[in-house]
């Protein structure tokens, strides 16, 4: 039996009395690459925030590596949505990645050579080492996303949460992120990320969690990412339905890793 990385029981979250997540019960096993999938406003980001502990649930509880999150000291590698920060902020690429080392460094202590080298290594992993002295505003959107990924890597956590890392990035960045995900998977780390592109789900992820206010289904991609479940997730929206049908057809014909590439 694989140990659970994240265990969620009876979770309900509400903003101003309006429920955003309703009665979620799910276990995400350790070492899985898990995609959270669902239409806009389905509560995907809210679910991430709940796991991070930045939102207090109206009811229910969460455990991370078998510890209730209120007591958990577990470090979580986090990649926020790119729009969540001011990119005109006066920091350079390396400064941002170094932030990933601050927790282990502790209060008051300044980062030294060890932190510097480690941050450079993380930048190397996303192919951004030669841009480490750039002001972050001078980067392209995809490069900014890679800086955030490098910062999360610098946290060196067992569990990673990423909020739409693939949104609006170029091909080079997509490749870089895929490599990072493969590496993390190989190292046995758990990655949970919000993902929009139904076409690539079965290529990238071994676990999916279908969400629309309530949990529709969750489990290994092969069994869970089915036409029936997608229909229940997205309702009757036609354009998405086509996309879903296409994705399902590709699972059926191509098997796990196939796709059209």
């Amino acid at each position, binding site marked *: 039996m694989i140990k659970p990385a994240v265990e969620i029981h009876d979770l309900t979250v509400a903003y101003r009395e309006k429920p955003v997540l309703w009665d979620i019960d799910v276990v995400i096993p350790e070492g899985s690459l898990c995609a959270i999938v669902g239409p806009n406003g389905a509560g995907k980001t809210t679910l991430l925030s709940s796991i991070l502990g930045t939102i207090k649930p109206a009811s229910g509880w969460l455990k991370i590596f078998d510890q209730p999150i209120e007591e958990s000291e577990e470090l*979580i590698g986090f990649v926020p949505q790119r729009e969540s920060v*001011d990119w005109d902020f*006066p920091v*350079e690429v390396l*400064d941002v990645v170094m932030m990933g080392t*601050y927790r282990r460094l502790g209060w008051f202590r*300044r980062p030294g050579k060890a932190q510097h080298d480690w941050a450079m290594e993380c930048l190397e992993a996303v192919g951004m080492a030669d841009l480490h002295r750039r002001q972050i505003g001078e*980067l392209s*959107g995809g490069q900014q996303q890679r800086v955030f990924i490098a910062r999360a890597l610098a946290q060196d956590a067992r569990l990673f949460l990423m909020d739409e890392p693939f949104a609006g990035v*170029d091909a080079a960045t997509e490749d870089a992120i895929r490599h990072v995900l493969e590496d993390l998977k190989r190292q046995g780390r758990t990655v949970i990320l919000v993902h929009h592109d139904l076409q690539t789900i079965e290529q990238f992820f071994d676990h999916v969690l279908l969400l629309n206010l309530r949990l529709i289904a969750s489990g290994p991609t092969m069994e869970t990412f089915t036409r029936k479940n997608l229909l229940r997730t997205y309702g009757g929206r036609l354009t998405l339905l086509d996309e879903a049908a296409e994705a399902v057809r590709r699972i059926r014909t191509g098997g796990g890793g196939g796709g059209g590439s």
Partner: protein
Amino acid sequence: MISPNTLVILAGTTALGICCGLVGALMLLRRRALLSDALAHATLPGVCIAFLLSGSRSTIVLGVGALISALIGAALVSWLPRFSRVRRDSATACILGILFGAGIALSAIIQRSGPGAAAAGLDSLLLGRAAGMLRSEAMLLGGCALVMSLLVLVLRKELLVSCFDPLFGRCSGQPTGALDLLQTALLAGTVVLALPAVGVVLTAALVVIPPAAARFWTDRFDSLLRISALLGAVSGMLGTAISSGHPELPAGPVIVLSATSFFTLSLLIAPKRGLIARKLRSSARKQQREVRRILHALLLASEQDLHSLSTDQIVAGSVSASPRALKQAIIDGFIERQGDRLQLKPLGSERARRARKSQEIWREWLTSEAAIDRDLIDLDEEDIEKLLPLELVRSLENSIELRKTTT
């Protein structure tokens, strides 16, 4: 000669300038600059109430009153948006107006009832009287300012995260709430310290202007803090020095004016973000574009076996290039002029070909891919490999070749 008393006051206002610069930089980066103005105005009712309750004019009593009322103001500004539908900027403006109004009303009551001297003491709070400060006041003020500055410097790593990405800070174990509170408290403290020197009305200027000026000079957090502190310190010192030599000039406005002159200077001459540098860059870019158009016109002509064009054809007609750009192209060795005829030199035709090719590659890239990182696009960039990965450029070149051979 400068008296020892003036020296102490100078040291005090310099320390105050450092503190304002540092705390102001944090507020600028958190986009809460206006809060400093609200808190400065919010001190007034506190000072008046402290005076009414104690009857004392001692700096410490009035200072504590000011601090409490600034903190109440800060609490209101942060609570109002959370518990009602008032937005944060409106909440800030409301609190500023309400508390300042209350303060003015209270000071009017004091003026009418109390002895004239006391009322005059409160009046000086509006515009400050740095040069007239007591030695003990200046020392207390400077000491507190230095302690707060030190706190910012020691915690700058944590403060950086909390300003840049508080959500990330929170999930990497930072007590975000405590850090927010600390920064608000630092601002309230700074505002109260600045009160006797600069006065209610202009305190915000001393907090906001130095970091805004510093931002023109740097793209790094640490140096922003350093430059902002330096500008604050120099403004404080300069303003006090000038105002102590001219008793008719109140210190507050002079300090703020010296900060303003640094701001104006930075706005104009800063190397990367300054207005002049920007203007120069954009006109250089425009000029280059013009030169490219001239070269392109000549290249097209030479490909149709016209080895030279007349100056008129370039300056007027469909090219209508600017004469300055033409001169530039000649100086750069791209073109030679023989009488009235213009002719491409080898360097120029090579340059024109390269520019044309990069244009083609850009066009190919923009039409070939669906998911394009818009921030990478720079149609003026001729060394396209600088922006796009080499393999991508090669494959674009191939597809251009392919299309040319098929048509």
